């Protein structure tokens, strides 16, 4: 995976769904950043697109019940560490009716 030079000392990539990008005009489905944990990644997304953090985590605080964050193929929590260079998928769970 190629990550740009502007991704800080711990470069990782957030992968967002279209349904999330639709909520935040200007956001992109692939986001390069520096983040060591899922919590740091959400904070960085929120810094770039204010309000996005609220859509992913609640105020317990925890990842929302019907959202899934996958790090290296495993469902992650806020304190899950992200390996350098990893892609993190932020997905909506099966829900609704």
């Amino acid at each position, binding site marked *: 995976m190629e990550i740009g030079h502007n991704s800080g000392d711990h470069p990782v990539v957030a992968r967002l769904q279209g*349904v999330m990008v*639709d*909520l935040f005009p200007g956001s992109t489905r692939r986001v390069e950043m520096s983040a060591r944990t899922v919590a740091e990644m959400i904070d960085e997304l929120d810094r770039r697109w*204010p*309000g996005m953090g*609220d*859509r992913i985590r*609640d*105020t*317990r*605080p925890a990842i*929302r*019940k*019907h*959202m899934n964050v996958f790090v290296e193929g495993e469902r992650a929590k806020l304190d899950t560490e992200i390996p350098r260079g990893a892609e993190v998928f932020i997905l*909506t*769970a099966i*829900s*609704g009716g």
Partner: protein
Amino acid sequence: MAKVMVLVGTKKGAFIAESDEARKDWSLRGPFCNTWPIHHVIADPATGAIHGAGGNEWFGPAIWTSKDLGETWTHSSQGLAYEAGKEPVSAAWSVAPRDGELYVGVQPAGLFRSADGGASFEHVEGLQQHPTRPEWNAGGAGLILHSIVFDPKDPQKIWIGISSAGVFFTQDGGKTWEPRNKGTRADFFPEDQRYPEFGQCVHNMVRAAGSDRLYQQNHCGMYRSDDGGESWQSIEEGLPSDFGFPAGAHPRDPETLYLIPLNGAEKGRFVPDGKAAVWRTRDGGRTWADLRNGLPQENAFFGVLRQAMATDRMEPAGVYFGTGTGTLYGSADEGESWFEIAQHLPTISSVETYVID
């Protein structure tokens, strides 16, 4: 020529129906708000903005705002939250404008205020500190704060309705609250405890125009209060049941109220006998008339949810309601005759009106 808008919240987005002052020909726009469940849609006449209160299982609660009558929307939940560790806010259920501010009712029950048109919110914390708070029980839709009623003369006075904690009142802008449920029943409690201080399942509460009078539709009866909720009198005699959800106040006449009684809490919550009717009083609830002209009179098995009826401020007044089965009905003659404005919508949660001169 006036533009009459009916703002509709549904399980899958907000819709806007539009007509002119004749209210005969209607067009429909939507779904808006990215098809989120939208529990309440209102317009703030002071700003011209439309606000939708909702919450999505995936993304949590938000207030959606459109400053161009629905063409484009933004959303925010900044500050619409309890402190860490508490059960998080899952959805916004009601929004009410006053003097440039917005008040928002949420689930689990709480009240928030926005001074910047829905961009950010602050918690009206006093309500959570009420000593009865640990004993509030959720109604069928959850523990939700749905009704927000202001005093047109005194901005410090607010009444709120919570299912199923009852009516609460503040006269200091939300710092302290007191229950206002005297005279309203709780038939779901043991026989000797059916008039408690709090715990009643208020379904909807409205202010009578130009008056201090309040009306409420409760899980157990219909009521009127002429003393700011200090005491409530039953007005259910003459109605086909004591159960229903919405209440619609006439825009000018405090004696006129519209209700939609359903067959009963445990009987399907349909219009009675499969025949739809809106019931109207012209004398403050002493007598009632059923209004059926244009409404289905056979095989109708729908209900109408708590915020899904409204009146407009035209002359004669329009009355509108939306069904759980997604039909929006309207009347341009105070309920004498009815017509369909839209059908096949998602389950309708709320109906409000906005008239632009």
